[in-house]
Each structure stands twice: as structure tokens, then as C-alpha cells.
């Protein structure tokens, strides 16, 4: 083999190896870009989903504003409402023919239900019809509440005494 032939052979081998190496590098680069593309597409899909959920939530909030306000009004949010409610009940009692006293007023927490309540204990006296009407009234107050304790007793003069404990839910803002 002549010198020129050898040089050409070596040169062609070098070019061949270089070409193969370049091709392999390009293939690896394309593969890496493909993986990056997949990751970016996943992030994009996630963002699109989040945006869709956000828009749905915003629309739901706008559409349900009135309903949520109605429900929110069923809870005590501040002391003024409590005072107003107590005043209303205490002014109603004489009109209903009852002698009413607010025995206890306290704020209690229920750890299980994770809620706060206003605990009110009323004692009242009147004829049995008025007493039962008052119980019915307290059952149907326009607030989220429940009667925890109720006792009625007939006393010697024919009138009735009642003691009622009611828990009204407080909404923490």
C-alpha cells in the first residue's frame, strides 16, 4: 500500500468515526429534548387543569353569592347580632305572656365538631300554652342552632316553669 493510499485510508477512517460520533450525539440530543418536551407538556397540562378549575370555582362563587349570603346570615358573626337577638327574645317574652330570664350566656367550643357556639340558658314562667309556644319559637329561630336541654315543670299555682338551653352556632370569620 502506498503512502498516499495509507493517508487516504486513515483520513477516511477518521471522517467515518467523526460522522458516527456526530450522529450518535445528535440522536442522544434529540432523545433528551424529547424527554424535556414530555415534562413540559405534563406541566402545561397541569397548568391548564388548574386554570380550568380556577375558572370553574370563580364562576361557582359568582353564581352562588346569594345562596351563600343567605346561609351566612344564619350564623352569629359578631356580638352585635347576639345582643340584638337577646333583646328581641327578651322583648317578645312579655308579649307572649311569659316572665323570661337569661340565666346564662357563654361561648363554648366543640372540639369534635370544630365549631363554636353561643350557649344561652333561658328560664321562663307562664301558662302552659305560652310556655310551649316559647319552646316552639326557640326551635324555629332563624339561626343555626339546637336545643340541648329542656325541662318543664308545673308549679303549684297552675302555671308552668321552663328551663331551656340552646346552642347557636358562631361563624368564625
Amino acid at each position, binding site marked *: 500500500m502506498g503512502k498516499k493510499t495509507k493517508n487516504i485510508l486513515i483520513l477516511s477512517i477518521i471522517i467515518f468515526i467523526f460522522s*458516527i460520533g456526530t*450522529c450518535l450525539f445528535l*440522536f442522544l440530543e*434529540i*432523545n433528551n429534548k*424529547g424527554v424535556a*418536551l*414530555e415534562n413540559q*407538556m*405534563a406541566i*402545561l*397540562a*397541569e*397548568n*391548564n*387543569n*388548574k386554570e380550568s*378549575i380556577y375558572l*370553574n*370555582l370563580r364562576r*361557582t362563587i359568582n353564581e*352562588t353569592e346569594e*345562596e351563600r349570603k*343567605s*346561609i351566612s346570615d*344564619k350564623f352569629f358573626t359578631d356580638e352585635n347580632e347576639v345582643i340584638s337577638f337577646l333583646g328581641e327574645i327578651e322583648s*317578645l317574652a312579655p*308579649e*307572649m*305572656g311569659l316572665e323570661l330570664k337569661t340565666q346564662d350566656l357563654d361561648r363554648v367550643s366543640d372540639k369534635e365538631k370544630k365549631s363554636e357556639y353561643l350557649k344561652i340558658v333561658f328560664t321562663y314562667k307562664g*301558662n*302552659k*300554652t*305560652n310556655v*310551649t*309556644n316559647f*319552646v*316552639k*319559637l326557640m*326551635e*324555629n*329561630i*332563624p339561626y343555626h*342552632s*339546637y*336545643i*340541648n*336541654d*329542656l*325541662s*318543664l*315543670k*308545673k308549679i303549684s299555682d297552675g302555671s308552668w316553669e321552663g*328551663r331551656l338551653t340552646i346552642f347557636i352556632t358562631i361563624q368564625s370569620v
Partner: protein
Amino acid sequence: MKEENIIGKILKHIVHPRQTEFVDNNIMHPERDWSLGVILGLGVCFFGIWLSFDLYNQYKDISIEDLNGIQGSVVYRSSLVEEVLVNFSERNKIYDDIISKSKSTTFIMVPVEGVEIVDEILSTTTDEIVVEEVFVESDLSEEF
């Protein structure tokens, strides 16, 4: 005779072949070397084509819709909300009814429907509004 010798030699060679008689004395074989080079080149070429096709197939169908992002939707139980609002409006109605009757000057105290009275001392502690369940049915004629 000569033919017999040739045939004899052929037969002899077949039976007892001698390698030395078929030694390739050529140094270069251009056809063979070119063929090998071309076949190798074509092999590399086809391998590259296959690899390219495989990569293309792998990534051509990627789309955002196919990927599973966060699965979630806003849950708003409107039927439950409606039920609650209806319940509260009924309560409001009863409440307002009792108040308006109590404020009326010609108010005649009558028992509210659904509530019955006993003469016994009763007490209960419950977590729910179950006042009706506390009372025991009695003969109303005894009351009036």
C-alpha cells in the same frame, strides 16, 4: 492417457485434497473489500434510519390532552344548599307566625300544632332539637 491422468488427478484431489494447491497468493482483493465496505456503510445507514424512525414514533403523538394533569372539579352540592334554605325558610315562617300572633292584640293563646303537654316533671339532655319526643301523649280533655 492424458485424460486419464487429469481425471485421476481430479479424483485424487477430491479424495485427498491438498491445501497447498489452493493458496490464495493475491495481496489485495478490491471486489471483496469494496463489498464489505459498502455492506457496512449500508448497515450503519439502515440502523440510523431505524433509530430515527423509532424516535419520531416515540414523540410524534405527544399532546396536552393525552396527559393526565390534576384531576379535580369544583364540588358544590346545590341540592343540599337548596334543602337547607327551604328548611330555614320554613323555620322563618313559623318563627314570624308565632311572633306576629304574640304581637296581635286579639291574640288568643292556642297550642301550636305538633306539641302536646304532660303534667309530669320532665327533663332531657339531647344534642338535637327533639322537643316533641320529650312529651308523652295525654288526653287533651283533661287539660281544658
